[in-house]
């Protein structure tokens, strides 16, 4: 740190070049933080820890095959299961087929306690319990579509009612928020009893079960016990953690991770060349000055350190601005993205650590050859050249 003034001054020796290099670094890290957040959201890597304690039970053949409601009590009886409830895919849309969001018929008493991160005022929950056609919506959805408590909302669904109508009407009785970081509340919940009684087909079935574990229960053992219970029945089950379930779904999107890696690979390869070239030019121009430093008694290692520190400094400045801009942009688009794929966006601590590690490594890699060159300078040669 003693040499900070010296390093700072030499970094700005050619202002335009340093500025342009910092801007390149800035763009590279901006891309890194943005793409990492999107990649993590798409692959479920941003899931919170509490979700690992929930298990999801689906039909073994696929998510679209329903499970009988009679499984509820059988699953509840499995040792290690604390609470269990169910949800079903409603798959409707509001006004325009493009306006789709998660809509699930659920049990008002049993479903919400499984998701403590979903918060709703007690009196609204009470209204949900007493209103047969009631629905509760996430705050982000309410904002997007202008839903307010007391509104009557028609949804057009894939499920016909007994009278053949495919339009279902719901009364908004509550608005919930998701208190977990990066969690989404973009969903529309309504009552399963109303749904099951009114629908034309598949009565007595649910889409999937979700359950919480008793303290100390082993998720793998519980999952195996549940699947074993329904083995060889007409509806065999597949139980996995909610995390794994979300990931398996996102993995089906395919090589998103590959694309993100490809882009970042190209970006950082270029970045190394840009900063490496800047440092090489800078050292070449300063050979005389570096020789003077050595003449003044600076050790070889100190000269190496000064050049390396300069390249790290340039990258860290650019990288930090990239981080700031990235976090700002992500916060700005998080809600839009959340309404689209149901996951919010933010700079995770994981990508923060990774980003800073990359800054340091890239700083060292792009500065190391010029720095070694500077270290190995012999005073006489360098002064003669400079």
């Amino acid at each position, binding site marked *: 740190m003693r040499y900070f003034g010296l390093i700072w001054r030499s970094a700005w020796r050619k202002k*335009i*070049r340093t500025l*342009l*290099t910092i*801007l*390149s670094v800035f*763009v*590279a890290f*901006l*891309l890194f933080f943005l*793409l990492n957040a*999107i990649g993590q959201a798409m692959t479920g890597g941003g899931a919170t820890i509490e979700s690992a304690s929930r298990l999801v039970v689906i039909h*073994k*053949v*696929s*998510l*679209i*095959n329903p499970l009988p409601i009679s499984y509820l009590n059988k699953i509840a009886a499995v040792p290690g299961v604390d609470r269990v409830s169910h949800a079903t895919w409603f*798959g409707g*849309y509001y006004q325009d*087929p493009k306006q*789709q969001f998660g809509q699930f018929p659920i049990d008002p008493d049993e479903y919400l306690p499984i998701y403590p991160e979903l918060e709703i005022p007690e009196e609204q929950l009470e209204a949900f319990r007493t209103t047969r056609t009631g629905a509760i919506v996430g705050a982000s959805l309410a904002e997007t579509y202008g839903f307010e408590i007391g509104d009557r909302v028609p949804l*057009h*669904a*894939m499920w016909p009612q007994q009278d*053949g109508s*495919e339009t279902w009407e719901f009364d908004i009785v509550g608005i919930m928020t998701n208190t977990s970081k990066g969690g989404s509340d973009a969903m529309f919940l309504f009552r399963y009893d109303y749904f099951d009684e009114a629908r034309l087909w598949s009565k007595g079935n649910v889409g999937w079960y979700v359950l919480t574990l008793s303290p100390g229960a082993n998720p793998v053992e519980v999952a195996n016990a549940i699947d074993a219970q329904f083995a*060889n029945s*007409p509806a*065999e089950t597949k139980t996995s953690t909610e995390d794994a379930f979300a990931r*398996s779904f996102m*993995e*089906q*999107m*395919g*090589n998103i991770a590959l*694309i993100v890696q*490809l*882009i970042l690979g*190209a*970006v950082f*390869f*270029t970045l190394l*060349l*840009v900063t490496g*070239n*800047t440092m*090489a*030019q800078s050292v070449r121009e300063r050979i005389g000055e570096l020789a003077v430093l050595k003449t003044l008694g600076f050790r070889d290692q100190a000269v190496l350190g000064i050049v390396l520190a300069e390249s790290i400094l340039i990258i860290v400045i650019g990288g930090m601005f990239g981080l700031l801009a990235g976090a700002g942009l992500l916060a700005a688009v998080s809600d839009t993205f959340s309404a689209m794929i149901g996951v919010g966006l933010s700079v995770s601590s994981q990508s923060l650590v990774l980003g800073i590690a990359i800054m340091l490594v890239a700083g060292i890699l792009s500065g190391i050859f010029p720095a070694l060159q500077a270290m190995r300078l012999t005073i006489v040669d360098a002064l003669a050249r400079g």
Partner: protein
Amino acid sequence: MRFLNQIVAVTRLNILNLPQRIATSVVAIVGVTAVVLVFAAVLSMAKGFERTLTAAGSDDVAIVLRSGATSEMMSGFSHEQTQQIANLPGVRRDGDRPVSSAELFVIVDVPKIKTGKDANVPFRGVDASAFGVRDDVRIVDGRMFETGKNELIVGRGAQLEFAGLETGATVRFGRVDWEVVGAFTAGGSVSESEIWTDTPVLQDAYRRGASYQSVRVRLDSPESFAAFSDALASDPRFDVDVYTERDWYASQAEATAGFIRLLGYPVTFLMAIGAVFGALNSMYASVSSRGTEIATLRALGFGPVAVLVSTIIESTLLALVGGLVGGALAFVVFNGFRVSTLGSSFSQVVFDFAVTPDLLTQGIVVALIIGFVGGFLPALRAARLPVAQALREL
């Protein structure tokens, strides 16, 4: 003419002494290469997806779904309804039978070969008439399934992407074993991502009774669509939506391709800005290393505009090289790269990346813009260089 000659002469000089500034020039070129590579690669994914979905899109085939269904999964018809739809006006007839195909659509979990992870693969119940409403469907390996048996045929794309679907293999979905008896191609269309079997067998295995999910009909001609669609709309027995096959697949492609583009364009834009900084850096270095040379030219009578234009040409040429390399790399590495993703019917679509000529052209245009923008400010500086001062610095 003299002005043009000056530009040519100065540009030639610039290019001839490029080797002296090789490091910065290569950095600028690589920057542009990366932009064009990423641009072409990401957008070729959107292109390939669209191409696969629209390959089947024919104007004289109509798809009928239950009203409001945004995918086949959400639709449903009774056997009687499918017969009534097939006999409406506008439907082509082969002898006394309408050319129509009522189909059932379910999803099964099959692991992807590359990752071993389960994916939703479309499993369609069809009969021989499915071949009548689709062009180019051909059995390329093995044979057609026999009716009433647990036999299935597999699209070429599905066979290459998902595990255990080789011809002759036995697969287990739920509690039923199926024998893979053949493979088919369908002109590169989305049908190649699917598994087909006999409708009654599938209805039985999935306890669907005699229900169907979609009806495809071959129309007399593309112009008959209006008549067919009017007949459906005015008939109180039906509450359905009808699309030409081309419109249907285009709308199915829209969401996924749109999402990829939503990712691709901003990323390209940001990377292009980064590359402009690289080009600026390289061109400033070029101008400052040629300070004496430029001053000498000016002293000899070359005009400032010639210096300006030639500097921009140099930078644009460097970017063009980068763009060509990036485009070529994208084509060699990604064209035909097979992947599968979740389409809008909640099921897998197998497709190839398509690095098309118009994508490459766009990529080159992006490169040229980067070169021009990156060269402009340094060129201005070169043109404004005070001659006397630059010569004194010698």
